[in-house]
């Protein structure tokens, strides 16, 4: 299995996608829009990272995918978070908090 060179970024993307999917099933394009919108254009998810991440999460059983129709009647692949994914989200949120706290502490100290 190929590991991404930047585990931090990878992990962050997973966290963002999971958090987004916590709102309900969504297709890939919608996920990018949502993250971009909520982060007020600061975070832009590259398609080149999003789809490998989505498929990896699917293989790991955090999300499941099925074909459906989008709001404007296009065929799209919808991702839905599973129970396992929910657990993973909680885990990653905790990690993220620890990380940001640690970074904040370093910044304050310095």
């Amino acid at each position, binding site marked *: 299995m190929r590991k991404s060179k930047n585990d931090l970024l990878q992990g962050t993307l997973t966290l963002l996608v999971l958090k987004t999917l916590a709102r309900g099933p969504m297709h890939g394009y919608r996920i990018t829009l949502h993250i971009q919108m909520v982060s007020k254009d600061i975070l832009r998810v590259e398609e*080149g990272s999003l789809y490998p991440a989505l498929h990896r999460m699917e293989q790991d059983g955090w999300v499941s995918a099925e074909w459906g129709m989008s709001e404007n009647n296009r065929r799209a692949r919808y991702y839905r978070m599973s129970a396992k994914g929910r657990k993973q989200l909680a885990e990653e949120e905790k990690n993220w908090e620890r990380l940001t706290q640690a970074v904040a502490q370093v910044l304050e100290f310095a």
Partner: protein
Amino acid sequence: MSWIPRLRSLLKRNRLDHDLDDELRSHLEMRIADNRAAGMSPEDARIDAQKRFGNSTLFKEDTRAVDTVGWLDECARDFRFALRMLQRNPGFTAVAVLTLALGIGANTAIFSVVDAILLRPLPYPEPDRLVRIWESSAKHDSPRNVVNPINFLDWRDHSQSFESLAAISGLMTNLSSQGQPIAVQGMQVSPEFFSVLRVAPFLGRTFTSAEAIPGQDRSIILSYELWQRQFGRDRAVVGQKIDVDGRPSEVVGIMPKGFSFPKFRAEVWTPLPLTRSEEWKGGRFLTVVARLKQGVSLSQAQQDMFRVANFTAQARPDNNKNWSANVFPMLEDVTEGVRRPLWVLLASVGFLLLIACANVANLLLMRGTGRLRELAVRSALGAARSRIVRQLFVESLLLSLAGMAAGLFFAHLGLRSLLALVPQNAPLPRSEPIAIDARVLLFTFFAALFTAVVFGLVPALRLSRVDLQNALKQGTLRGGVGGHQSLRRCFVVAEVALALVLSVGAGLMLRSFARLISVDPGFSPEQLLTMHIWTSPARYQDDLKRSQYLDRILAEIRSTPGVQAAGSTHFLPLTEKISGSCFSPADQPAPSPAESPSAQFLIISSGYFQTMRSALLSGRDFDDRDRFNSQPVAIVNHAFVQRFYPGQNVLGKQLRVCWTIEKPVEIVGVAADARQAQLQDVPEPTIFLSNSQAPMYFATLLVRAAGDLGQIARSAEAAVHRVDPDQAVSDIQTMETVFSDSVSSPRFQAVLLLVFAGLAVALAMIGVYGIVSYSVSQRTNEIGIRVALGARSADVVRLVLPEALALAAIALLLGLAGSLALSRAFASLLFEVTPTDPATLVSVCFLVLAVSALAAVLPARRATHIDPMVALRYE
């Protein structure tokens, strides 16, 4: 990492690819639609959407790598790449594959023999519980002596370790169902035989205990093969009466196809009637097989048998004093004589495979140095070391798999010629077919895997440790080569050392075999014909009639044109058959049989010595005076006189011979010694008795004749049929064939070892050649200068030879040490040659040294022919 969905996704890869395309297209379209809604032109909307995706192929690859088992995928890629690399170097590939194929093929062929004979369980249910039990005598130094019938009955009644025991005696039978009589080998067996083996008949039944009672034993069981050949698989044969040895016997059963018992080539089974009657008291002739009770160990059974043997020794001390009983696992027992030679052969081919591996490893290293740049570039581009090792290893694996495929072909051919070396009518320890089957294939596969690891891993690890900087900077082949060269030297030393060990083995076997066949057998096997007859007991039960019967046959044969002499013996020399009997001087009170001296005996006709061209040293041959009722006479051999009457005149002395004759026999002649059981056995003291006075039921006729022996054989058979048209004649062969078959197993070993050693030396020579060629090519510059300055070719040879000779010398020392270490395993296979035979060691060392020097001189000489100008410009 969850494997199952990934594996599943690998299987439905096509559909997934499709899904992915759809998903991305839908994404793209939604983006375009939004872009359009935001006011972009259709063209700009599309370009913007696509730009966001970047390199879509790479990105699809990435996504897919997540879905499929990336690892497997990469391996497949490695394989494709390796295939391309091998195709690009057809010469290298051919040499490597051929070398491996020889090694793997030879191993497969020998392993299929070892597996079929030594490893595979016997073809009966729960074969681990089968044992064979022999009598043993400290006095005769025989741990496996055939068994006395009354002792067998005692064993059966008093032992506690066995479910059942069965006794076996070999026999020949004359079947004459319709027309031509045929002689068939068979076994007389006690009724328990089939239940000990747990084999049910194909048709009918096996013997009942009632059939073991003398007089009620007129039943016969046929082999499937005989039933097919002689009775056309007619089911109605069961229950019918057929003529067996002149008496009608009922066919009670047919055994299943392929049923056999080791070391007996039986096609019929008849009941063996055993009683405790006096006449059985003396002789020992039974083979005993038994099945251990569930949970009884071999040593418990052995203890049990010691106890029972103690009982029989006390019950009948005359015959059993100093005799005991030995229990052996059946598989071990039947493979007793062949186990060591086969293991030695397997070890030898194992060495051969190691040499092949070393050779290919060297080739890989040599080629690897040429690939340093490629490897350096790859690792500069970010390939991990493990990735490069895997890449190189996959190439090795591919080579060894190709070697395996070609090796299986070699093994198929080799096995055929191997089995052709085994005499047709040798009683093999196992009669199951020897073939390349699933078990052997599995072995071959693992052998190939093993070779890939041995020859592939070391070079792969070594080559992957490239000094990047150097390899890229220099741009020549020089980078990192020095280290590989010393590794290659180690491989070459190992090769030459192993080749030496094999050559020493082959040399010893060859010398031993030469010694063996130059043994004077004490008779002359040329122009001598042998054939076997078995006299039907029913028609020749009367001793007088039977004694005259053989005389009449011999007289008829002697009158045949072309026949110079004819005679008979009950056991043909060099067929591993001997019979023994106790005896005592008639002028002293008779000791008990167990305390009497014993000698071998042979029942022969008059004219035996003349026919065999064996010398009579003194006295006379048997002749017409020695009739059934006249004074019993005997001839003894030189060894007998030496052992029991050294320096005395034995003519006229009287002996009591336990075998068969009540009246004492008078010694009338002394014969020269001849080899009996096998060529390597020194002649034992032997008493010859006349068939006219102690008639046997069977005999081997010997016919010495001039001209075509095939023609003589037909006339002799016709002569036998003129005396009795129902007399079957079997095993017609020349004494030269008998002689040659008798040494077939040492010949088998010698030939195989010689072939292996030859291959080993050839491979080692290639190894030496390769390494010297390489150092010569490295020194082309230097050699060019030397030649330009006037060095002659001898000088140049002197320049490179020391390296090769130093390697060879180290290898010789290691090889000699190896040979000495292995000599003990070898000793028992040799005849009149010690495993440290100096002549063999010296000549093999010399040979290996000479071959190494030759392999070194060739590239050195070639170097001297290089044009100095070219050499100087080199690089």
